[in-house]
C-alpha cells in the first residue's frame, strides 16, 4: 500500500507544479498556496516512507513509457530511507521557498514552481525505480529540471556558464551509469534490477560495473576530480534550489552507489573499499581546505558539501572493506554511520543554504567581505544558522557529531581486518578524518563569524531585515531536525537496522535499543555516548553558574565602547576579513591551491591588492581536456567543405561502403 500512496504523492507534486504553469506570473498564488502545498506533500511523503521502511519490499509495474517497456517500481527499506530524507528536507525547503521567491528575477514564479516540483518528483522516482530504463529516464529528468532551476536567473552570463558546466558533467556521468547497467544485465537483454540482482558476474565484469557506477554517481555527487560543477552551480541557483541540490540531490548519487555496490553486485571486493576510501578522503580534505579559503558564502557551503560527500564515500568504502572480509556487524556500524550522515547532512546543509538565501535577500550581498554583524538585525536567522553551523562542524550534542562519532568508532575496529597492509593504513585514515572534522569547525567559525558577528562591514547592512514567517517556519523545521538527530540517535539507529540488514546482513538495532538514553553501538565497555545527558550536564552547569553568581555576587552591567587595548579609532575595516581568516589555511595547505596574487609596489599611486585562489585540477585536467575536445572537433570540422559536390561524394562513398558490408 505505501508504494501506491507514494506514487500518488508524486502525482500530487506534479499537479502542483502543473498548476503553476497556469499562474505563471501570479506570485502570491504560487508562493502562498502552491509551495506550502508542496511542503505538506513532503511531510506526507516522509510519513508514508516511515510506515513503509520496516515492511517487506513492494513492487508495481506502471504501463507508462514505451510500449512493451513499462516502468518498474520497487519500494524496499533502502529506498524508503532515502524517501524519508527527501520528504523531510523538501518539507522544510518548500516552506522556506513560500517566502523566498520574489517578482522579477529571471524565470517567472509559476515556471519555477513547475521545475521545482518536477525536480522533487523525479528524485522520488529515481529512488523508486526498479529497472534501468525507468532509472535513466528519471535521472535525466532530475538533471534537466535542476539545470533549469540553476539557470533561473539566466540573464547573467556566469549563471548560464555554471549551468552549462553542470549539464555537461551530469551527462558525462549519466553515460557512466548507462554503461554500468549495460554490464550489469550480463547479455540477458533484461534491464530490470531483479534480473541484475540474479546475475553473478565474474570479478572482472563486476569490477568494471563498479568502476562505471563510481564514475557516474561520483560525477553527480561531486567526488574529486569530478567536483568542478558543484562550486559553480550551487552559488548560481536560487537558495532553496541550492538547498535541494546539496541537501537531497547529491544523496541520490550516494543512493545509487549503495544500490549498485551492495544490492545489485552482492559482495564487494576488498580493493573497491580501498578505492572508495581513498577517493572519499581526498574529496573530504580537498573540499574542506577549499571551503576554508572561500570568500563567497554559497561557494563556501558548496565546497563543504564536497567534504561531506567525501566523508560519506569514505564510510561506504569502509563498509565495503568490512563486508568483503565478512565482518558483518562492523559493516553495519560503518553503513549506519554513512546513513546517519546522509540524513543529518540533508538537514544542516539545507538549513545553511536557505539561511544564505535570507541573508542574500536582506542584504543583496553574497560576498563575505561585505557582510558582518547581522546577528543584531536578523536574530532569528542568526541563531538558527548557528545551530546549523555547529551541526556542520560536527560538534556535540548535535546531529553531525553522531555520524562522525559512529564513523570514528568503526575505524577503531579496522585492526581486526585480516590484512596487514590495510591495518597499517588505518591510523593514517583515522587521522585524516580527524583533521577534516577539525577543519570543518574552522570553516564554520569563519562562515558564521564573518556573516553574523562583528560590526557590519557596509553601511547598508544596518537596514537588513529578519526573515519572514514562512522562511522562519521552514528553517525552524530544519533546525528541529538537526537537534532531534543530535539528541535522540537511538530511535533513528533502531530504524536504520531494517536498512542495513538486507545490504550487509547485519544491523545495530538489537544492541542499540537496549538503552534509550545512551547510544551503545557494541557494548557499554567498548563505547557509549549519551547526547541528552551531555546536554543536561552542560546546561546544568550553565544554569548553576548563572544563578550562583547572581546569588553570591551581583548581576549589574554597564555598556561601554569596546576597549581593544585602548586604540581610539575602531572601524569595521579593522576586523579580520574572510581572506584574512583563510590566510593560515592558504599558507599551510599551499600545495592544494593555485594562487594568483597581485601585490602593490611601494611606489603605486593607487595600491591594489588582489588574490585569487584557483583549483589545480581545473587548470591541469579540465582545460587540457577541453582543448583536446576542441582540437578534435576542428579536425572533424575539416570534413565540412561547404560544397555540394563534396557532400555528394560523401553520400556516394557511404553508399558503396554499406553495399560492401551488407551482403544478401
Amino acid at each position, binding site marked *: 500500500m505505501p508504494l501506491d500512496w507514494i506514487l500518488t504523492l508524486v502525482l500530487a507534486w506534479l499537479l502542483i507544479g502543473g498548476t503553476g504553469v497556469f499562474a505563471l506570473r501570479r506570485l502570491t498564488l504560487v508562493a502562498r498556496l502552491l509551495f506550502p502545498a508542496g511542503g505538506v506533500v513532503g511531510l506526507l511523503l516522509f510519513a508514508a516512507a516511515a510506515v513503509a521502511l520496516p515492511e517487506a519490499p513492494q513492487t508495481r509495474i506502471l504501463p507508462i513509457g514505451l510500449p512493451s517497456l513499462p516502468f518498474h517500481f520497487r519500494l524496499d527499506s533502502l529506498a524508503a530511507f532515502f524517501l524519508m530524507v527527501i520528504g523531510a528536507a523538501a518539507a522544510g525547503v518548500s516552506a522556506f521557498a513560500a517566502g523566498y521567491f520574489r517578482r522579477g528575477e529571471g524565470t517567472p514564479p509559476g515556471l519555477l514552481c513547475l521545475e521545482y516540483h518536477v525536480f522533487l518528483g523525479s528524485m522520488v522516482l529515481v529512488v523508486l525505480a526498479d529497472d534501468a530504463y525507468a532509472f535513466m529516464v528519471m535521472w535525466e529528468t532530475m538533471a534537466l529540471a535542476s539545470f533549469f532551476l540553476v539557470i533561473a536567473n539566466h540573464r547573467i552570463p556566469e549563471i548560464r556558464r555554471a549551468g552549462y558546466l553542470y549539464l555537461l558533467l551530469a551527462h558525462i556521468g549519466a553515460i557512466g551509469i548507462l554503461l554500468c547497467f549495460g554490464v550489469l544485465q550480463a547479455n540477458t537483454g533484461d534491464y530490470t534490477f531483479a534480473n541484475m540482482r540474479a546475475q553473478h558476474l565474474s570479478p572482472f565484469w563486476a569490477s568494471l560495473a563498479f568502476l562505471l557506477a563510481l564514475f557516474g554517481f561520483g560525477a553527480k555527487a561531486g567526488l574529486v576530480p569530478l567536483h568542478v560543477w558543484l562550486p559553480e552551480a550551487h552559488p548560481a541557483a536560487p537558495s532553496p534550489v541550492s538547498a535541494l541540490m546539496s541537501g537531497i540531490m547529491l544523496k541520490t548519487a550516494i543512493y545509487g552507489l549503495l544500490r549498485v555496490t551492495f544490492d545489485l553486485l552482492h559482495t564487494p571486493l576488498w580493493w573497491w573499499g580501498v578505492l572508495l576510501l581513498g577517493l572519499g578522503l581526498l574529496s573530504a580534505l580537498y573540499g574542506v581546505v577549499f571551503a576554508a579559503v572561500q570568500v563567497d558564502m554559497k561557494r563556501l557551503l558548496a565546497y563543504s558539501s564536497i567534504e561531506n560527500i567525501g566523508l560519506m564515500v569514505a564510510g561506504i568504502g569502509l563498509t565495503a572493506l568490512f563486508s568483503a572480509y565478512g565482518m558483518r556487524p562492523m559493516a553495519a556500524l560503518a553503513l549506519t554511520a554513512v546513513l546517519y550522515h546522509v540524513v543529518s547532512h540533508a538537514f544542516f546543509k539545507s538549513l545553511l543554504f536557505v539561511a544564505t538565501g535570507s541573508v542574500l535577500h536582506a542584504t543583496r550581498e553574497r560576498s563575505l567581505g561585505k557582510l558582518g554583524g547581522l*546577528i*543584531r538585525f536578523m536574530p532569528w536567522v542568526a541563531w538558527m544558522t*548557528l545551530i546549523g553551523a*555547529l551541526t556542520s*562542524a560536527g*560538534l*556535540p550534542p548535535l546531529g553531525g557529531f553522531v555520524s562522525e*562519532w559512529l564513523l*570514528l*568508532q568503526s575505524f*577503531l575496529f579496522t585492526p581486526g581486518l585480516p590484512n596487514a597492509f590495510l591495518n*597499517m593504513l588505518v*591510523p593514517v585514515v*583515522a*587521522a585524516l578524518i*580527524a*583533521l577534516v*572534522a*577539525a577543519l570543518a*569547525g574552522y570553516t*564554520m*567559525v569563519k562562515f*558564521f*563569524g564573518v556573516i553574523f*558577528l*562583528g*560590526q557590519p562591514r557596509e553601511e547598508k547592512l544596518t537596514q537588513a531585515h529578519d526573515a519572514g514567517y514562512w522562511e522562519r517556519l521552514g528553517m525552524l523545521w530544519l533546525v528541529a531536525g538537526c537537534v532531534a538527530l543530535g539528541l535522540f540517535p537511538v530511535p533513528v539507529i533502531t530504524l536504520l537496522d531494517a536498512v542495513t540488514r538486507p545490504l550487509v546482513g547485519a544491523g545495530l538495532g538489537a544492541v542499540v535499543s537496549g538503552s534509550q538514553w545512551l547510544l551503545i553501538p557494541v557494548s557499554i*565497555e*567498548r*563505547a*557509549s*555516548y*549519551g547526547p541528552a*545527558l*551531555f546536554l543536561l*550536564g*552542560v*546546561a546544568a*552547569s*550553565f544554569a548553576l*553558574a548563572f544563578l550562583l*553568581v547572581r546569588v553570591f555576587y*551581583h548581576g*549589574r*552591567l*554597564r*555598556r561601554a565602547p*569596546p*576597549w*581593544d587595548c585602548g586604540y581610539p579609532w*575602531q572601524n*569595521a575595516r*579593522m*576586523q*579580520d576579513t574572510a581572506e*584574512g*581568516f583563510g590566510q*593560515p589555511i592558504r*599558507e*599551510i595547505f599551499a600545495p592544494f591551491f593555485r594562487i594568483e596574487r597581485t601585490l602593490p609596489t611601494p611606489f603605486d599611486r593607487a595600491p591594489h591588492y588582489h588574490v585569487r585562489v584557483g583549483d589545480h585540477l581545473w587548470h591541469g585536467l579540465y582545460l587540457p581536456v577541453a582543448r583536446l575536445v576542441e582540437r578534435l572537433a576542428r579536425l572533424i570540422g575539416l570534413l565540412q567543405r561547404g560544397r555540394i559536390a563534396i557532400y555528394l561524394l560523401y553520400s556516394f562513398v557511404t553508399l558503396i561502403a554499406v553495399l560492401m558490408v551488407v551482403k544478401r
Partner: protein
Amino acid sequence: MNVLGYLSQILEILLALLLAPLLTGWINQWRAWLQNRSAPSLLQPYRKLHKLFHKELVLAGHASSLYRATPYVVFGCMALACAIIPSLSTDLPLSPAADAIALVGLFALARVFISLAAMDVGTAFGTLGARREMLIGFLAEPALLMVLFSASLLSRSTSLTTIVDTLAHRDLAIYPSLAFAGVAFTMVSLAENARIPVDNPATHLELTMIHEALILEYSGRHLALLEWAASLKLFAYSCAGLALFFPWGIADALSPLALLLALPMLILKLALGGALLALLEGVSAKMRIFRVPEFLATAFLLAVIGMLVNILLGV
C-alpha cells in the same frame, strides 16, 4: 550504580572546581621561583576570581547575547569535562555520557564558542585571536584524538573509564606506543592550554597573544568565569594525562577507603606535574605563530607513529 557512585561523582566535580585555581596558583608559584622572583601566594587565583566577581561588568556597546552566554557555556563545558575524566575513581555515573571522542568534541565546542564570542565585538584583536585559536585548534584536535586512539586500541574501548581501568591494571613496563602518545599529549596540552612555547599566559603583547586576545573585551563576572574555565581546562588536561600515562593509585573499586587513598595520590601527582610544567615553560621560549603548525604537526606525527607501533607490535 549506588549512592557511593553518585557521591564520588559529585566529589570529583567539586574537587575539580576547588582545586583547579589552586593548580594554576601552584604553577605560577613555581614559575616565579624558577625565574628568581618572589612568588605570589598560592591562593592568589582565588583572590583574583573573588575580585572579578565583585567588579562591575562592562559590556562592549553592541555585544550580542551570544557574547553574554559564552562564558557560561565555556564554563559548563569545562565542568562537564572534569566530571567525565576519571581522576579519583574509575567508576563514574556520568562517564558513559561521553567517551574519548565526545571529550574532544566537548573541548571543540568550548573553543568554537569562545572564538565566536571574540569575533562578536568586532575589534581587530578579537578576530585575530579567534583565527589563531581556531588554527591551533584544528591542528591540536586531531593530534589529541590520535593520542586517545592509541590508548583506546590498547584497551579496545573508547570509554575513558575502561581505558584507565585497563591501563591501571597492566604490568609496570614501558609501552612504546604509550611513550610516543605521551610526548604527543604533552605537546598538545601545552598548545591547548595556551602555555609557552605556543602562547604565553602572562602576556598582553599585541602581536603574540592568543588566549588573552580572545578574552580581551571580557570583564567582571564573565572574565572570572572564563579564567576559572581556563584553569579547569588545565586541570582536566592534567587529570587526563595522569590517568592515561600514570594511572597508578586511582580507585578502581568504590569504597570510601579507596577514595580516601586516591585523593592524596592525585594531589601529589598534580603537584609534581605542575612543577614539571613550570620547569618546561621555564626552559623554552615562545615561538612565532607560524612555527606553531610545525610544532603541532610533530605532535600529530608522534601520535600517529604511536598508533602504528601499537598496530604493528601490539604493545
